[in-house]
């Protein structure tokens, strides 16, 4: 999923201060999984903001809506019924959702309530770790299912570097050395001779190197 973390309360308070009414929009997909912006988080944030502004003597009216996802125009369209009653939108979705709302309601101020972080997977409840950086040309088949771009601090394609220590990255003892993981996998798969194939320099164009990317399915896009 795309992971995110709620922005600090101070920042959010400053952001909504100028308004008397906002729409707090959650998303039922990725940010729900990483507990950053789903229905629950919308409820808690709305309660927190309401109490804060009540204390300030400037009550803030908050409409709480959690869409199925904010990255599809069909769902964002559902906000039409609420949007005119509010002065601004605070979206708890990832950057994609925030932008989709801004695109659809282009004369309504839209603000992000979370900092979008990375594409990752759940290690266990409450812990999510980076797995993919969308490089556009997946080499997971060569590296035993471990990504050298997202999981190696230096995105080495022919690692490990000389700083790998006890299977951990020199940068953070909590981060596994990706190339140790790759080597272990190649061993488990009986593919160790593959290690000495030097992977060539990467073409970064599919990874965003030639600008913002787009996928068009001719069979689906009418």
């Amino acid at each position, binding site marked *: 999923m795309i992971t995110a973390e709620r922005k600090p309360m101070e920042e959010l308070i400053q952001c909504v201060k100028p308004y008397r009414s906002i729409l707090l929009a959650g998303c039922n997909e990725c940010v729900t999984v990483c507990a950053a912006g789903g229905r629950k988080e919308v409820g808690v944030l709305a309660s927190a903001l309401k109490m804060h502004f009540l204390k300030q003597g400037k009550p803030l009216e908050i409409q709480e809506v959690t869409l199925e996802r904010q990255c599809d125009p069909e769902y964002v369209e559902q906000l039409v019924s609420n949007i005119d009653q509010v002065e601004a939108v605070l979206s708890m979705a990832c950057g994609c959702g925030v932008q989709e709302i801004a695109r659809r309601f282009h004369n309504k101020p839209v603000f992000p309530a979370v900092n979008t972080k990375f594409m990752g997977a759940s290690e266990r409840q409450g812990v999510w770790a980076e797995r993919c950086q969308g490089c556009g040309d997946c080499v997971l088949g060569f590296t035993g299912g471990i990504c050298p771009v997202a999981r190696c601090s230096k995105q080495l394609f022919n690692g490990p570097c000389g700083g790998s220590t006890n299977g951990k990255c020199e*940068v953070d003892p909590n981060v596994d050395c990706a190339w140790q993981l790759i080597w272990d996998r190649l061993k488990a798969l009986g593919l160790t001779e593959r290690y000495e194939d030097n992977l*060539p320099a990467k073409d970064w164009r599919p990874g965003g190197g030639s600008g913002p990317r787009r996928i068009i399915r001719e069979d689906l896009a009418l």
Partner: protein
Amino acid sequence: MKTESTLEKILASGDLAVTSECGPPRGALAQKVREKAELLRGYVDGINVTDNQTAMVRMSSLAACILIKQMGLNPILQMVTRDRNRLAMQSDILGAYAHGIDTMLCLSGDHPYFGDHPMAATVHDIDSIQLIKMVKDMRDEGLFQGGDKIDGPPKMFIGAAANPFADPFELRVARLAKKVKAGVDFIQTQCIYNLDKFEKWMEGVRDRGLHEQVHILAGITPMKSVGMARYMKNKVPGMDVPDEVVKRMGGVPKDKQADEGIKICLETIERLKNVEGVRGFHIMAIEWEQKVPEIMERAGLLPRPNSVNSGAQNLRGGKP
């Protein structure tokens, strides 16, 4: 001969080669480069110039190399993949060669986390092994990485680093094999304190015949104090300092520790001279460059072959 590099000539002749290091200053004072390099004149065959080492901004390796070349000495350009993309790297390589710099080391580079700009974006457009291949193709095929022809290819003698002490050990010979496959000409290892482990690595290297495909220079760093020994043991990733070494350093009074460190260094050099496949030494006397002449003398590695001592000869040897 693949290049005009002095280092290549000495290694090809079968003599032991010796290189040392010069860290550029954290400012624009050219004099600091000259002072450090001058200490090494006549004592070594090549002087590595580090590239933003430990991810701290310093005068660029290329600029410092040019200053050193102008002194009639023999600089070795170090290039990390952390800070530059392939365009900038190829560009700098062309520029270096235009100034007569014909020997370089290809590295990944320490992570910015350790340095003075942890907030910077890392580049790592290519890794060190891809860089080796890129420089080799520039030299031997006369082609840029993108495929176009180079008008005046740089004939670089290509080096890389090897760390027999990093984890996982079982991979360390294979990693050298990868660099050899990519086209590396010479290797400088991480500084050696654990001679047993190093010899074990060399065994693996020799088993595969790699010692005949690449020139290996053993890394040496003299200890200044027991504090330094402990620091390197505990705080530096990829460094292997056995307990006996720390004990030995700590076993002498403070004012005698530097001497003990030099003694250990000399013993290491002696032992390594007899390890088959070791073709020379890379002496990294960090912030202690003035000790290199003494070490070289006492290790019986002087005088250096003629091609390095003469300043005049080196000035003539530079490419136009």
